[in-house]
């Protein structure tokens, strides 16, 4: 089956820096994938190239099997929600309003759902007759999210769409995304640095660091792969004996060790009896580790059951 999105040897270079370096990627249709990585890692560039808004320097990109740039057939079925989207707003003219933006979107996207759009506006507390130039940052983000979801585009790309939105509003976004995805499955690529908040949404995660893909795997494959074991030094050492370890820390008679490998029921019992605390590493912590350079990424890929 043709993947919805694929990139081969994709690179994007500017005069003074390399934004993307030989990226190979495949994203299956009707999945939600998290695009993770530090600021400036190249996530935005990748998304813009997928949406035909930027051009690759070399390599190829395919969406629905063809290159997206200047391709009506692809662009009609794709939407990119950017945090810095510019709308036609200006001084002193009759204002470009939220309602205008939605109307324009309604004739550009064949699957546009006006009911969903207006219910999202209500959810975010956004009035449709407000001028876009008078919106706060959070409200602009809410508008972008509204357009992105109501478009029901087969490929929906989100580039950190939550600037200025508080935790409650972000949760509304995640909930609405999941709900609409359940009703209308589509290919979603969500770039974020608030990983733990959105972690449960992802079926797969792709981690980008310095323009390269360092991890591309099923999210569930990562979960539970490393655990922090802490407590009295001797107990910790005995518990983690013979198991691979990433990190060791100690303070006086206490120690904290990051141990690799799934923790079984027996392990938990034993830890309890030894008075040890077991805390699994969150997806965010795992991603941070993967972004810590080739060694970090290698230690994860070696253990993943993708």
């Amino acid at each position, binding site marked *: 089956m043709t993947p919805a999105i694929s990139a081969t040897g994709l690179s994007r270079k500017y005069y003074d820096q390399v934004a993307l370096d030989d990226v190979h990627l495949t994203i299956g249709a009707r999945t939600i994938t998290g695009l993770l990585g530090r600021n400036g890692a190249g996530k935005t560039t990748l998304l813009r190239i997928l949406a035909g808004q930027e051009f690759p320097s070399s390599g190829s990109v395919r969406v629905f099997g063809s290159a997206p740039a200047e391709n009506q057939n692809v662009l009609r079925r794709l939407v990119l929600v950017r945090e810095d989207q510019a709308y036609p707003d200006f001084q002193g003219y009759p204002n470009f309003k939220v309602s205008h933006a939605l109307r324009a979107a309604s004739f550009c996207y064949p699957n546009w759902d006006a009911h969903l759009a207006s219910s999202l506006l209500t959810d975010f507390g956004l009035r449709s007759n407000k001028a876009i130039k008078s919106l706060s940052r959070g409200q602009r983000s809410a508008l972008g999210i509204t357009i992105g979801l109501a478009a029901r585009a087969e490929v929906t790309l989100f580039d950190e769409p939550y600037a200025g939105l508080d935790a409650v509003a972000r949760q509304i976004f995640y909930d609405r995304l*999941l709900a609409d*995805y*359940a009703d209308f499955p589509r290919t979603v690529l969500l770039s974020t640095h608030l990983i733990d908040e959105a972690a449960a949404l992802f*079926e797969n995660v792709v981690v980008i660091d310095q323009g390269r893909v360092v991890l591309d795997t099923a999210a569930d494959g990562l*979960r539970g792969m490393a655990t922090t074991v802490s407590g009295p030094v001797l107990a910790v050492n005995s518990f983690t004996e013979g198991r691979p370890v990433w990190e060791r820390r100690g303070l006086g008679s206490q120690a904290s060790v990051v141990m690799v490998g799934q*923790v079984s029921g027996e392990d938990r019992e034993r830890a309890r009896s030894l008075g040890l605390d077991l805390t699994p590493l969150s997806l965010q912590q795992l991603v941070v580790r993967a972004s810590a350079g080739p060694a970090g990424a290698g230690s994860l890929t070696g253990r993943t059951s993708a």
Partner: protein
Amino acid sequence: MSGMAGLDEGGPLFAQVADRLAGEIADGGLAEGERVPSTNELAAFYRINPATAAKGINVLADDGLIEKRRGIGMFVTEGARARLLARRRAEFTERYVEPLLTEATRLGIDPGELIALIKDTSSERGGVPV
């Protein structure tokens, strides 16, 4: 990871979903012949990806604990509860009873003494007399 209604980062989410459903069946919360929540319902409840929820359901289906009825949904199969309880017993035996016996033997306590010990401890606690 707030809002996941009790799922954590300790292991694959699909496995946790499967475990919870199995637990419900074993505890009798989900009776045999009763409809199991759909993939979308589970996804909405746990706030997880529907594909993950589906994977969890498939684990139970592959195990024969739930079955698909065309057009209606997934239902708990006959005898599922009994099987799960039997499995729990087996796990209990392996995890607790075997080591107990091993340790008792090591300490020179024979099975008859062991049973008496258990009875005494149980009544001290105010439990059900064996």
